[in-house]
């Protein structure tokens, strides 16, 4: 029974497809899978917008939305209707074609990223040999669409927002990749389902997730921070800082195109949290050995939503960084730490089983964290700035 429930979507797809003629079946599977994944993630998006506003409200001692339906649950529907009925304005001096293409490219690229996520046992749309690389390749392509949006609007706010976004995404992509590589080094593969399998199994009742190792913990934290920066979420939301840039690179978008940017931001957040769940939190595996009877896909989405909750929590807590703080943090703290972490991962791999490696690896990670932290927080001499060219 538990087995069937676990595989219910796989069985359902098989059953539905069996009514199709033989040659249509692969296409049927593909269409059903795509529709299913998109439906699930878009529903999740709607729920998350509600959840985020509720959570932010509660963390600031407010109620949050409570007018549309019970507990304000229909708020996303109202928002959707509003976005659909608004006028779609395009600035007259904008580059019409590029302005139109930018949100489309962004949405397509982000949706492609959803295809490789293993959402449950035997539940992955495309199992690629280099799935993780595919994910990062797509992440790189979103930068281009952000630039397209910012440049084509012919607006200083948009352009500045796009420049900030690209600079930030490039900087944080380095620690993101480096921290992901440590999981790849241990699992020995770039395929996401295989990385999940590598974390299967329990010792006692505790799972073998990578986050429960010194390097994995550091990697998960670095990955999480970099993921927040990649998705332009607070406290890394400089590209769309309302107090400085109106809305950053999508200032000149309205109506449904604005909604597309909004959806793309959230879907990007889901996909990057799904990847971090896959890399460090055991993917669809149960957290304790006696909980395996609960279907794998429930575990996966529970973990993703937990990570999203942490995102919201951090957003409610921290103020926005300044541009130089942002860059210093990426290049002077995260990058060295993730490089050291890479070395620690290699050490972990070659020290063999045993308790020594725990002590050594944990010690290196903690010491480097403290040293880098102290070095980064040391009192800096602040003097009036000298301009080389301006005077």
């Amino acid at each position, binding site marked *: 029974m538990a087995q069937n429930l676990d595989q219910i979507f796989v069985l359902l797809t098989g059953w539905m497809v069996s009514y199709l003629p033989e040659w249509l079946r692969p296409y049927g599977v593909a269409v059903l899978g795509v529709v299913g994944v998109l439906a699930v993630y878009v529903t999740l998006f709607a729920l998350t917008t509600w959840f985020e506003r509720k959570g932010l409200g509660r963390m600031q001692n407010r109620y949050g939305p409570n007018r549309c339906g019970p507990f304000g649950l229909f708020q996303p529907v109202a928002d959707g209707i509003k976005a659909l009925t608004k006028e779609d304005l395009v600035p007259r001096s904008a580059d019409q074609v*590029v302005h139109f293409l930018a949100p489309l490219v962004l949405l397509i690229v982000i949706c492609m990223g959803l295809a490789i996520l293993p959402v449950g046992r035997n539940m992955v749309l495309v199992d*690629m*040999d*280099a799935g993780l*690389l*595919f994910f*990062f*390749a*797509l*992440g*790189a*392509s979103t*930068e*281009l669409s952000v*630039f*397209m949006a910012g*440049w084509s609007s012919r607006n200083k706010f948009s*352009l500045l927002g796009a*420049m900030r976004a*690209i600079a930030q995404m*490039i900087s944080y*992509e380095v620690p993101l990749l480096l921290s992901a590589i440590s999981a790849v080094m241990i699992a*020995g*593969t*770039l395929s996401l389902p295989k990385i999940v399998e590598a974390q299967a199994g329990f010792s006692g009742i505790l799972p073998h997730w990578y986050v429960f190792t010194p390097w994995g913990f550091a990697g998960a934290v670095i990955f999480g921070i970099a993921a927040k920066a990649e998705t332009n979420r607070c406290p890394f939301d400089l590209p769309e800082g309302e107090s400085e840039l109106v809305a950053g690179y999508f200032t000149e978008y309205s109506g449904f195109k604005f909604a597309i940017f909004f959806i793309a931001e959230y879907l990007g957040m889901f996909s990057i949290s799904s990847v971090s769940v896959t890399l460090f939190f055991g993917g669809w595996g149960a957290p304790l050995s006696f909980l395996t009877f609960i279907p794998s896909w429930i575990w996966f989405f529970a973990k993703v939503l937990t990570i999203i909750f942490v995102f919201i929590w951090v957003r409610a807590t921290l103020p926005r960084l300044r541009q130089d703080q942002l860059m210093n943090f990426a290049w002077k703290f995260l990058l060295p730490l993730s490089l050291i972490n890479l070395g620690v991962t290699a050490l972990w791999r070659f020290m063999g089983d045993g308790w020594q490696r725990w002590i050594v690896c944990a010690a290196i990670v903690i010491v480097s964290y403290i040293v880098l932290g102290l070095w980064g927080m040391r009192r800096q*001499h602040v*003097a009036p700035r*000298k301009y*080389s060219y301006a005077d």
Partner: protein
Amino acid sequence: MSPVFYLLAAITIAGGLAAVLLKKLVHCALAAAAAFAGLALLFLSLDAQFAGFVQFLVYLGAVAILIVFAILLTRNAEEQDGGLFSRTWFAGLVVAAAVFAVIGWAVLRSGSVLPNQLAVPTATVRDIGVALMGRYVLPLEIVALLLTAATIGAVIVAMHEKEGEQ
């Protein structure tokens, strides 16, 4: 040759031509990015996943962005007079054709594209990694050294302000 190949080839060639012929520099850069993407998809349709993704990651994520940044940071105003195509499109086309001729000549001369090669070599990511770390480790390290030197040089060029003046 499947329809997919023709579609991707059309995208790639159209992107390349547009990159050479269009008037606005940013349009050219975006067209070049489209050509890069088409090329990456061509790699993928040939089952060369690693090469395809790296093409995406490096060319779309780094090279295209670099070009775009360079354009934005160096010229502030663009000529507004009309016309879709650049005035010097012919020169651009000639340069592109010359480069194409050289590369095509080199490809045709090299022996590895014999049409009678039947068995498709399968190279997994692991194979590529092993090859890079084994047989090609020296070139890899030399490239790494070169890039490090270039990065340090760039930092020094950018670090114009002298410490003592602060």
